[in-house]
């Protein structure tokens, strides 16, 4: 039963107020993209045993989407942050590095 702090309204929301939205920082590929690009965009999800970046919505709350950095093995939460960014902010990366030196996720580290 996870608790995530919604970065928009500041509520420490328990899972039943939230809706999980899968992998974060996807780059959309539309018309003109290659079959591989489109396929990977829709179906090739990160599925790490460890550090993961994901999307959540404070559905039973302020209704905003946000991002969370979480460990899928311990459920430790490194931080939550705005959904309006294309990659995790530095303080989040630092927080992860402090706990999981040498971590990588897609092109981020």
């Amino acid at each position, binding site marked *: *039963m*996870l*608790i995530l702090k919604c970065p928009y309204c500041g509520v420490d929301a*328990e899972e039943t107020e939230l809706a999980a*939205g899968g992998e974060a920082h996807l780059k*959309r*590929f*539309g*018309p*003109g*993209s290659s*079959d591989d690009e*489109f396929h990977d965009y*829709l179906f090739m999800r990160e599925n790490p045993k460890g550090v993961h970046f994901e*999307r959540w*919505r404070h*559905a039973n709350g302020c*209704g*905003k*989407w946000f991002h969370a950095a979480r*460990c899928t093995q*311990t*459920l*430790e*939460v490194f931080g939550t942050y705005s*959904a*309006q960014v294309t990659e995790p902010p530095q303080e989040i990366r630092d927080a992860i590095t402090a*706990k999981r030196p040498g971590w990588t996720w897609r092109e981020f580290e």
Partner: protein
Amino acid sequence: MSTRLASQGRLIDRSKTIEFTFNGKRMTGHAGDTLASALLANDQMMVGRSFKYHRPRGVVASGSEEPNALVGLNSGDRFEPNQRATTTELFSGLAAQSQNHWPNLEFDIGAVNTYLARWLPAGFYYKTFIHPKPFWKHVYEPFIRQSAGLGKAPDKELKDADTYEHFYFFCDVMVVGGGVAGLQAAKAAAASGAKVLLIEQNAHWGGRAPVDGGTIDGMEPGAWVEKTLAELQAMDNVTLRSRTMGSGVYDHGYALGYERINDHEPGNGAPRHRLWRIRAKQIVTATGAIERPLSFAGNDVPGVMLASAMRDYVVNWGVTPGQKVVVVTNNDDAYRTALALHDAGVEVVRVLDARSAGGGALMEEVRQKGIRVECGRAIAKVKGGKRVQKVSICAQNGVGGAQEEISADAVAMSGGWSPVVHLWSHCGGKLIWDDAQVHFRPDASRPPLGADGKGFVLPAGSANGAMGLGEGLADASAAGSAAAEAAGFPAKNVAAPEGVASDELPIEPVWLMPAQADVTLRMKSWLDYQNDVKVTDVQLAAREGYESVEHTKRYTTLGMATDQGKLSNINGLAMLADSLGAAIPDVGTTTFRPPYHPISMGAIGGEARGKVFQPIRQTPMHAWHERNGADFEPVGQWRRPYAFVRSGESVHDAVNREVKNTRENLGLLDASTLGKLVVKGPDAGKFLDMMYTNMMSNLKVGKCRYGLMCSENGFLIDDGVVARIDEDTWLCHTTTGGAERIHGHMEEWLQTEWWDWKVYVANVTEQFAQVAVVGPNARKVLEKLNAQAGSGMDLSAEALPFMEWRDGKIGDFDCRAYRISFSGELSYEIAVPASEGRAFWDALLEAGKEFGVMPYGTECLHIMRAEKGFIMIGDETDGTVIPQDLNMQWALSKKKEDFLGKRAHSRSHMADPDRWKLVGLETVDGSVLPDGAYALGEGVNANGQKNMIGRVTSTYYSATLDKGIAMGLVKHGPDRMGEVLEFPGTDGKTYKAKIVDQVFYDKEGAKQNV
């Protein structure tokens, strides 16, 4: 025999006598009794039968770890199977029945199994019942199933008479366990100012200490408990809860508390159970320890009891299970039982200490009382069927050659103590093996981790392996302070009280008694009393290669009984390690899973039953529908009238009447459930062009356009009419139940992909009650309302043409009128404020009388749209259908570079010309095609399945055309007009249907354009 003592009984009130029945027999007990203590007071030694061999079973423990004394409690709509007598507080009128026997407890046919035991070892069923094959289903399994289960199932027709509820609670520190350790931990934590919750599963506080004796700060433990309890009650940052068990610890500091509010006085109007959903920053588990049985032959005979339990019955309830008791042990604690029995005037005929050197101070004390203590000795065998009669004694270090046989009627056994580590382990806390104390205890260096990656559970007292009274109190005090500190409250220095108890000599591990017991003894030495798992079963599992503790558990069913192995796991584990020649910690334990102790399904479900099981969303006209024959169908969380059935009518008749009447006169549809989303902003047009497959940005103000929505994966997800309200505002209609989904869909794209676009969306679905006024008389009834009011909007074809909308007044009602049609008739959809919806509905019905008005339901709606060949999301689409399949290329804008789904449509399979496409279907004999029927192709596929070339997506009887009509998806369908296909039904018949145009009625659309 087992009787009530003249003295003792700190928990009972002898002045209050309570009547109850066991198997119909009237018995009495006292206030404060548990059912178990009351049964023992009535010399009811045998209380049930075991699972596999139907062996006689008696009370063996005094708490929730009890595996034997399970009864069916109460009756009728309050009956509950498998209730533990040891945790059931006695109440007046309590009626209990013993379980798992036929015809009765005393004489049980099933007991024959005990004589066959030799041929029914662990897992015998995996090796047998294999041939002949049909016998498993028809002979073997029915036989096995008949012997399955313990308690009776509750009555199939009765609904639970009780109610349940949930309660959210937040605290800094939660302490589980109200023994002296828990009380001290709570006190230490609370001293720092932290908000503390302390829960105790029993009705009384203090745990074992008042029974086990010693002193705390010079006081009797009982007195200290009272004093500390009073101190805690006086603190407003402390919440105390008895009869509340810590049931489970979950991730991120979530914990469940299981409060049994009125099990001790059923039917008093209160909820029966309350499930506490607790969010704690830190959790202290002061859950105590559980004594282990010893494995000797006949250790399952009624009258053989845990030494600590026997002590509890004497001291707490003034009951002795026997008059001549043998105490057998491998540690000092059991001597306390000998003393308690002796002090209560019960004869202790022998104390057998398996340790060659025996025990310490407590042993001396026992000897001084003149009780005979023998060291290095063991029980070879307990004799007796339904109760203990004789005990044969041998050397512990031997094969079990009996050296003496003494008569006794009860045996108190102690194999040492295991800390209760369940809650610590639920969320991943690890254990270490303590060689000195011979048990697993929490490994403080590997706690369960919380959201911050730090440990959030602290074990305290004997639950942490701090077994002595003084040691336990000190440990608990430290744990309490540490928990508060971890929760952010600088620790105040709380001095731990001084606990003083007799010094004890170390325990010596005794996993089998006697050490080299031969097979005839081992196959009578029980590990799991309820499931009948014996020493030889575990040895067999090891021999056969079921080496992992999980394999052994599952192969023998050890620890899978209702006590989840609280008594049997460690003994079984040790026996497995011994058989494998491995060290106990190397064999490891099974995983501890919630709940600690079974909790009622009712409590888990909480209040959500009956009318609050799930929300039923209601339109402003819902009450009218209910009162006017509506036959409802669930659509999402809504319930919409399927049809309005009149007396003497079948649902089918009603639907046909509604279709006919709407086509010929006037029909009203409650369309309030259709989603309505306002989309506004400078980029709204651009945004809607991405959301819809067709163009919305070029829609003229005042006009409407039907739109399709696809997922990014290309599949149709919704459709509806979009209206342009003003320069930068659109109103999008969604399907019923689609409002929240599509609103979320839009917000998701706006917030996570195009967050720089200037667009706001608001869901105004419920702001409006919307009524579809349909049929040749539609305009007449609306104009009549205007006439009555003396004014109102112009509803003429010129002023409000098809696919346009206007704001204004109709009669007394402010409204927005849409000239749209899903039926092919002259049709207006009128939206009024929801608060006026019912009044508007009533006004239409009143004014409509002269025009033959009738409300109609969803089935009529479906039939009329099918007659017109309109698709329905959920019928023609199922999540695998793309617009091209429905010949709706016209709705796929060519002008737009991009929209959700466009890229997906260019994938090879979606561009495949062989995809099934929408056509109309008409049976050759006018009958109705079966729903979901498939069209048969030629031959079979590589897996031998008959090839299919199409399927029916919707099919109805058309009252308008008096024949069956249908739509379906067919391979190359549009190119095969006139062809007749075969649709095999599940009724054995084959239906023949011709491929036709999907528009069955008013092809040129004359009726709606008037």
